[in-house]
């Protein structure tokens, strides 16, 4: 079972369907101002928790150092800020239970490509934090655009169509504050997870399965996978999905014109039930 559901679902089907997990307190007691954050381009470069030490440890295959750094980074991320992949269907259900909801700029694409704010409204924020975001656009670059639930559903559906994966992110676990719309290689979360083996982005509650009877080998789905789980079998002339690598986003399934790909519950397959 998903550890986040175990801890925070409180009787709901999944932890992200529990409205309490969107109700972070707007006001909190301020901590003492600590020392000013030192300039650190790596921190600012969109991979806040990983620096050259980790890349060097990977490079020299220092498994002990890798394990330690990975452990520290994961513990911190899971406490403060991590994500889980969700299907479009689940994202639309989440939009039903949250308010307010707003479009905002994507911090990853800003740091990866320097994408100008006006081209960068692919992130969605939700909950009372959005009022803060609205009030101080000079701190939170780009400002925000509040959306009605219908507009929000329309926006994520279009981004899904465009090929962006829907993910939910915590801001102080278990509080979920963002629906991100991500793709490789410009999403820091996907890169950290896929390239560095650090579980910053958790797999979702579903797995994509190809029905070889229905798949006609049109390959429409091939460009949809952001997780290196989907390839094309030239021998069989069929889409091939590695279920252990599949993050369960459903992008391949929504694109398939033959409805040959179905999303099944991860827990329905014993060997995958604990692969997150």
């Amino acid at each position, binding site marked *: 079972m998903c550890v986040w559901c175990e801890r925070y679902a409180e009787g709901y089907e999944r932890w992200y369907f529990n409205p309490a997990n969107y109700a972070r307190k707007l006001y909190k007691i301020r901590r003492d101002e600590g020392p000013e954050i030192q300039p650190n381009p790596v921190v*600012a*470069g969109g991979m806040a928790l990983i620096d050259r030490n980790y890349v060097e440890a990977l490079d020299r295959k220092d498994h002990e150092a890798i394990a330690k750094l990975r452990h520290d980074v994961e513990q911190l991320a899971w406490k403060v800020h991590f994500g889980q992949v969700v299907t479009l269907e689940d994202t639309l259900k989440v939009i039903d239970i949250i308010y307010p909801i707003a479009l905002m700029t994507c911090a990853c694409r800003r740091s990866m490509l320097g994408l100008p704010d006006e081209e960068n409204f692919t992130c969605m924020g939700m909950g009372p934090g959005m009022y803060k975001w609205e009030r101080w656009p000079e701190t939170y670059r780009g400002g925000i655009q509040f959306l009605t639930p219908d507009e929000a559903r329309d926006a994520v559906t279009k981004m899904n169509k465009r090929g962006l994966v829907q993910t939910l992110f915590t801001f102080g676990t278990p509080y979920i504050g963002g629906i991100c719309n991500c793709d490789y290689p410009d999403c820091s979360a996907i890169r950290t997870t896929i390239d560095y083996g650090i579980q910053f982005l958790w797999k979702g509650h579903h797995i994509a399965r190809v029905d070889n009877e229905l798949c006609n080998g049109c390959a429409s789905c091939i460009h949809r996978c952001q997780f290196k789980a989907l390839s094309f079998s030239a021998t069989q002339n069929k889409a091939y999905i590695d279920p252990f690598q599949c993050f369960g986003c459903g992008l391949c399934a929504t694109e398939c014109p033959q409805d040959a790909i179905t999303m099944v519950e991860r827990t329905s397959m014993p060997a995958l039930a604990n692969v997150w």
Partner: protein
Amino acid sequence: MLPTITVDYEKCNDPLSCRKCLLVCPTHVLGLGTRVGPRKFKEIDPDQFIVDGVRFEKCTVCMDCVSICPKSAIQVSF
């Protein structure tokens, strides 16, 4: 063995509006950040933005960033 990427922040003084290296890098090795941490209620001055190497393991040392930089601010060595 990993490449080393050095950026001269004095020469590269407005990466936010230039961003040629960020767009040319085939594997998105470089990152755009700032020289100051997030500061509440303050806009960050454009000349505080910097570009630097982040995802070194994906750098192929193709030198595209070095040759495209209009300020000759980037050095890559291996």
